[in-house]
């Protein structure tokens, strides 16, 4: 069975990346570069805390709230939700990740947390390992599945089996990164205490 595109809108009209969204993304990236280049500690702290908080919340929300909801929806409803959600996620997630990691690394360097002499250096290395696992899952599973779903949905006759399989991959990967975010919360609160 193939699902037909709605009559009022052809499937190929669905944008892969919302072009207008590139403006705030560019502004955030420019602000991070400026903050790092000027060594502005409050700015680094701001970008790390705000980016990290939003990244963690979004991962948990996607993995443990949206994921189970999506699984229970009928396929046409999943497709409609996916069409609206995924283009935004494609811009939001890489921006949040870049913001959090770039600012976080510079902040840790500035505060001496990267030094092996730092009393909780082990926790810092643990946080790097958690981030590495999340990056591998996000870049190899989540993001490609996200893009592939959007391409499939642009076809005049999207294949529901392909969409379902990619969405399943997306939801499980989001669950894994959500669980890893719990580990991040433990590590970050250990470091901040």
């Amino acid at each position, binding site marked *: 069975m193939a699902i037909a595109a709605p009559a009022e809108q052809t499937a190929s009209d669905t944008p892969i990346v919302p072009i207008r969204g590139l403006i705030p993304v560019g502004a955030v990236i420019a602000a*991070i570069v400026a903050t790092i280049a000027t060594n502005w500690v409050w700015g680094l702290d701001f970008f790390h805390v705000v980016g990290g908080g939003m990244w963690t919340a979004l991962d948990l929300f996607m993995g443990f709230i949206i994921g189970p909801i999506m699984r229970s929806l009928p396929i046409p409803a999943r497709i409609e939700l996916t069409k609206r959600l995924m283009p935004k996620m494609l811009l939001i997630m*890489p921006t949040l990740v870049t913001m959090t990691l770039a600012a976080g690394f510079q902040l840790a360097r500035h505060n001496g947390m990267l030094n092996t002499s730092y009393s909780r250096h082990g926790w810092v290395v643990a946080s790097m390992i958690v981030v590495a696992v999340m990056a*591998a899952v996000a870049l*190899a599973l989540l993001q490609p599945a996200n*893009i592939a779903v959007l391409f499939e949905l642009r076809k005049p006759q999207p294949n529901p089996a392909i969409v379902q399989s990619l969405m399943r991959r997306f939801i499980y990967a989001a669950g894994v990164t959500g669980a890893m975010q719990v580990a991040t919360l433990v590590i970050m609160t250990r470091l901040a205490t």
Partner: protein
Amino acid sequence: MTKAPRVTELGMLSIGFVAAGVIYLAAYLPRRAPLAPAVILLALAAAVLAANFLLIARQPNFAWWRFRQVAGWMTLVYLVVAGMLEFTFLYDRTRGAVLVVMTLLLAVFTLNVPLLSGWTVARFETTA
């Protein structure tokens, strides 16, 4: 449908080697880490990436036009990200052999991401 090669899993492995290399080097800061383990991890990451390219190249009826479209744009995006990371390395006064290894690890990472997205999209594309 024929069974697709395990490009995604290999991509994760390659990114894992890159991450292990970067974490290894960063864990020694501010001292300089012995480079041999990082070079081995870099070689492993590059070898897995090359194997992945070969696996894709050997796919019959592969939608190369779609792969190039997706991978091309993703390369542009991740060149910006890689540029930022390279800027951070230079800003933090990373120099010499460590900078070379870090840059090559970054290059392998930057090639892996477009390859994985291009593959995932193109494998579901029907060739004309």
